[in-house]
């Protein structure tokens, strides 16, 4: 019996203590001031891009490593906001590039409504390379900077200042500064080249950013390629509000919502009910554009329209009406950039008409800009037909990446 007790005494404690350990956390790369959210090797990226028909076996493809970086910026009201951005670097670059450092491209994203579509949220949730940063980083070899903007990512509880110049520029510039600090702290070598680009709302943000950078003179921009943005807001607003129907009602509803917030106006004086009451919920970051459009009307104004007829009437009739002044104040086309600017736009764009880019080029040149040019995407790429705003995006990014690469090659040799 003693032997039995001894055996059980030896065995049972082992039985009871086994397996209480937890699985160690994933051994991800540790970084200072952020977190790694995507890391695909050059081999993986190439296989993935080949399978999608984006490159062939002979193409040079770099790896893709993305970090989410939290930082602080300033909103339209001048208050500090904790925001986030995605910093993507290529890996597997030639040793010479490691010596020279990476050229940066600040890439302001287009209009989104769902927080799930913000760059850091996509990267964190999906863990995969996504969108324009694939072209700029894995195919172009640039370090790509994508601020989420106020209202998305870490600041999802804040309203998004849609097409509002000050905060879009601040968000972008503060992210560039944050990335420089992050890169120093984590021994990621950058060179002094800084390119700016962005599509749609991002195109607008690009010119807003360039204007503020030149005004502040803290940073130097190598080249800016705004793409398909509504640079002249006054002309854009006249065009939209004078049309009987809206092509994408959510765009204008978001604009009305953001401007009501920023200019302290009552939303129902801009947007008709019941839409005014719905909007805070519709644009809180939980819905995609299609779902929001379904809750709105496509009629521009009138009793059943989206916009309050009084608001529309005042806009057209009164040059001093607050919204007219706000449109002028937030337009980004009427100034004289010193930096080289290439306005990339598709002639078939049905959302942001090509004419907006033509006006911008002409205005800047008229104000003395020496190196501003409008580049029509279809003609430059030799496309047979004009393409829409949605179709244009990736082709515009490809063209911009090629232009930036040519400049980089001519200036620093790779």
């Amino acid at each position, binding site marked *: 019996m003693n032997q039995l007790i001894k055996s059980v005494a030896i065995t049972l404690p082992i039985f009871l203590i*086994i397996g209480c350990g937890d699985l*160690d956390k994933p051994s*991800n790369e540790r970084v200072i001031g952020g977190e790694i959210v995507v890391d695909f090797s050059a081999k993986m990226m190439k296989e*993935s891009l080949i399978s999608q028909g984006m490159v062939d076996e002979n193409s040079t493809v770099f790896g893709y490593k993305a970090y989410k970086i939290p930082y602080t910026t300033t909103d339209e009201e001048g208050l500090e906001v904790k925001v986030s951005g995605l910093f993507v670097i290529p890996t597997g670059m030639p040793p010479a590039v490691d010596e020279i450092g990476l050229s940066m491209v600040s890439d302001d994203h287009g209009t989104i409504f769902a927080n799930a579509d913000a760059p850091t949220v996509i990267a964190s949730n999906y863990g995969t390379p996504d969108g324009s940063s694939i072209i700029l980083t894995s195919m172009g070899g640039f370090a790509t900077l994508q601020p989420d903007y106020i209202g998305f990512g870490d600041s999802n509880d804040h309203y998004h200042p849609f097409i509002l110049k000050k905060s879009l520029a601040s968000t972008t510039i503060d992210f560039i500064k944050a990335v420089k600090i992050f890169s120093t702290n984590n021994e990621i070598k950058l060179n002094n080249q800084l390119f700016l680009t962005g599509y749609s709302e991002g195109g607008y943000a690009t010119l807003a950013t360039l204007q503020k950078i030149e005004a502040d003179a803290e940073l130097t921009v190598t080249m800016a390629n705004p793409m398909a943005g509504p640079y002249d807001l006054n002309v854009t607003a006249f065009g939209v509000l004078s049309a009987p129907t809206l092509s994408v009602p959510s765009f204008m509803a978001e604009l009305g919502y953001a401007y009501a917030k920023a200019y302290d106006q009552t939303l129902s004086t801009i947007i008709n009910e019941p839409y005014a009451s719905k909007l805070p919920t519709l644009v809180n970051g939980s819905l995609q554009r299609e779902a929001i459009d379904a809750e709105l009307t496509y009629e521009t104004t009138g009793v059943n329209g989206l916009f309050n007829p009084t608001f529309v009437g005042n806009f057209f009739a009164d040059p001093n009406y607050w919204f007219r002044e706000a449109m002028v104040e937030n337009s980004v086309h009427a100034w004289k950039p010193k930096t080289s600017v290439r306005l990339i736009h598709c002639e078939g764009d049905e959302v942001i008409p090509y004419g907006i880019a033509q006006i911008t080029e002409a205005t800047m040149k008229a104000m003395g800009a020496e190196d501003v040019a409008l580049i029509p995407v279809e003609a430059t790429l030799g496309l047979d037909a004009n393409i829409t705003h949605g179709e244009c995006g990736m082709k515009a990014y490809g063209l911009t990446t090629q232009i930036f690469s040519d400049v980089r090659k001519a200036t620093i040799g790779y």
Partner: protein
Amino acid sequence: MKKIVILSIVTSSLVMAGAYKVPEQSINSMALGAAYIAHTTGADSAYFNPANMSFLSDKQHMEAGLTLAHLPENRFSGVQAFSATEFHPADGKTETENLLLPYLHYVSKPIGNIRWGASLTVPGGLTKRWKSPYQKLFAEEFTLKVIELNPVLSYKIADNFAIGGGARFIYSEGVVNSDGGDAGKAIKREMEGNTVEYGYNLAMTYKPTSDINLAATYRSNIDLAEDGQANLYLGEVGKQFDAEVTVPLPAALNFAISKTWADKVTLEFVYERTYWSAYESLDFKYGSPIQPALVSSFDDLKARNWKDTDTFRVGATIEMNNDITFMVGYTKDETPAPKENISYELPDTDAELFSMGIRVKATDAITWGLAYLHDEKESITLMPGDNHGGIIGSFSGGGADLFTAGVTYEF
């Protein structure tokens, strides 16, 4: 992590005999290929047929031992298809495993018509570790470890009839690792989980004559809900999730008959029905949504649809003299895994098992024994369209060689 290592030493296991159930847990059962239900003669009655505890001599009985399991490599020759247009040569093989499985059985002295006992065993499990690219994508390592503590009681209703039963306390651990890196898929999974589960077992023995035993035993199904964490990687970046996966340790019903001639030679036949149909799917569940790109590989339910199996065992025990007993056994075992759902984590096939062993009486109280069992798996070929997982080719090898050494003590 240190504690995990301790477990590995204690229960590094496990054997693929009838999928991942391991019926052999003593000298006699190993030597007889588990044709050891009706005519159990020692402390291992507590595990194989607790009703038979009532017919043991009025002493305490104890047996302890160790089984060395040598698991030869599984080999696969063929291709892995991911779609009608994507398929890759996928020849590969598993690691050879050498593992130690301990066991302990005890039966008390009778208290009136009641007797109690207990067993500590490793009644199930498996481990498959593939090193070839396309197998690693699915099962770089798939390990299930099971330890059972089984206290039992018997009650002698009559001199020729007894019943028994007990509670089953199961501790189990699972490890699932998958790595698609070498196969060009930037995905990886590391999962560890464990669980404590409960079940029961029942037994009865009837002796119509002094030389014939009729017995039936039943062990209940126990779902092993391995609960732990999973690290899921896309590229080089991983996230940790709470995770759970359930596999059954299936119910088993045994009917057995034995006949003894001249108190020297005993022949036993066992029919075992194992209720593997409880294993319908392999379904990993996570505490929060995983990366969408990983859902099809690591989250979608994988059908298994195993079927109940019939196993036939025959064993002969020959007492050469008062001190030496010789045993041989043969088993025809059936795989529960249908062709369409055979997978790399358990490429199980029908098998024949051959076993033999010897017991030697060292003193009146102590007997030692050795046993050997060879598990010979059939090869299987999967033609295009046979397998839902896109496996096209032949599995061969596998099986097991088991060596058991043990000591019994009566006092």
